[in-house]
C-alpha cells in the first residue's frame, strides 16, 4: 500500500516535471507567453517564499521564523553574500526560539 503511494506520487510528480520541460520544446509559444513564463516562475517562487515564511501547515508560523527571514531579506537587499543571508536568517530564528520567542 505504501509502495503504491510512493510509485503514484513519483510517477505523477515526474510527469509534471517532464511535461513542462518537453512542452517548452514542442509547443510553439507566442512571444508574449514566452515573456510571461519567467515572470510566472518568479511569482511561484515568491509565493513559496512568502507562504514558507508566514505559515506552517496552513496556520500562522509564529514570530521567530518571519523575524529570521526578515533579517535575511534586509541583508540580501543590502547585497550581503548569499551564505550570510541564509546563516543570519537561521541564527536569528534559532536565537529567538532559544530566548523563548516562538
Amino acid at each position, binding site marked *: 500500500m*505504501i*509502495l503504491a*503511494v*510512493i*510509485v*503514484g*506520487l*513519483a510517477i*505523477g*510528480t*515526474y510527469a*509534471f*516535471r*517532464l511535461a*513542462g*520541460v*518537453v*512542452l*517548452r*520544446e514542442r509547443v510553439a509559444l507566442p512571444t508574449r507567453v514566452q515573456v*510571461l*513564463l*519567467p*515572470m*510566472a*516562475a*518568479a*511569482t*511561484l*517562487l*515568491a*509565493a*513559496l*517564499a*512568502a*507562504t*514558507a515564511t*508566514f*505559515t*506552517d501547515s*496552513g496556520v500562522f508560523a509564529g514570530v*521567530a*521564523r518571519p523575524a*529570521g*527571514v526578515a533579517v*535575511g*531579506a534586509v541583508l540580501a*537587499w543590502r547585497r550581503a553574500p*548569499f*551564505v550570510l*543571508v*541564509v*546563516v*543570519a*536568517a*537561521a*541564527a*536569528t530564528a*534559532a536565537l529567538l*526560539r532559544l530566548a523563548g520567542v516562538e
Partner: protein
Amino acid sequence: MTAAAARSILSDRSLVRDVGALGLAVFAVSISFGAIAVTAGIPAGLTILMSLVVFAGGSQFLAVGLIAAGNPFAAIFAGLLLNARHLPFGLAIGDVIGTRWWQRLLGAHLLIDESVAFALAQPDPVRRRRAYWATGCTLFVLWNVGAVLGVLLGNAGDPNRLGLDAAFPAGLFALLLPTLKDPTTRLVALTGALVAVVTTPILPAGLPVLMALSGLLLLAVPRRRPRTEVSS
C-alpha cells in the same frame, strides 16, 4: 554531464559556496524527513525509495503524514497538488536543461524549487544551465544521503530549533531579488505572494501557491501611461 562541465561548475566558486549553504539546510531537513518517516511506521527501504524517486520535500512530508493517518489516496492527491507547480517551472526553464533527450529525462527529475531559483538568478544561458545542474545534482545527493542518515538515526531532533525553517525562504528571497528589480515582475510576484499567503488558511496545501499565478492577471489591466507633455 561531462568531466569538463563538472570542472567548469567547480571553477565557479561563488556558485558552489551558495549552493552549499542552502544545501546544508536541505541536508538537515532531509535527515528529519528520514527520522519522521520511520517513526511514522514507513519501512526504512521505502522511506529512502520515496526520497529518491519523488525528490520533492514538501510532498514527501505531506505523504508520510497522510499515510500515517491511514489515508493513502489523499497522500497521492495532496502530494500531486503540491507538486503541480513543477509544470509551469518546467515551461519557464525547460530550455535551460539541455537539448538532448537524456539531458531532459534526467534533468526533469532535478527540477526543484532551488534549481529553478538558482537558474533564474543567473545573467546568461551558460551560467543558467550550470547553476541548474549544479544545484539539482548537489541537492539530490544531499537530500538522499540525509534521508538515509535520518532513517539510521531514527530521531534527528527538530531542525526548527536551528532556525533552518527560516533559511529556505530567506535564500529564495535573495535569489529572487535580481528578478524583482523589474517593476512589472515585482508587482506581479508580490501580488501573487500576497494571494498565496491570504488563501493558505482556507485552501488545501499546494493550491495557494498556484493561486499566486493570478497575479499575472494584473498584466491584463490597462495601465495608465505616464502623461507626456505634448511638445508644441
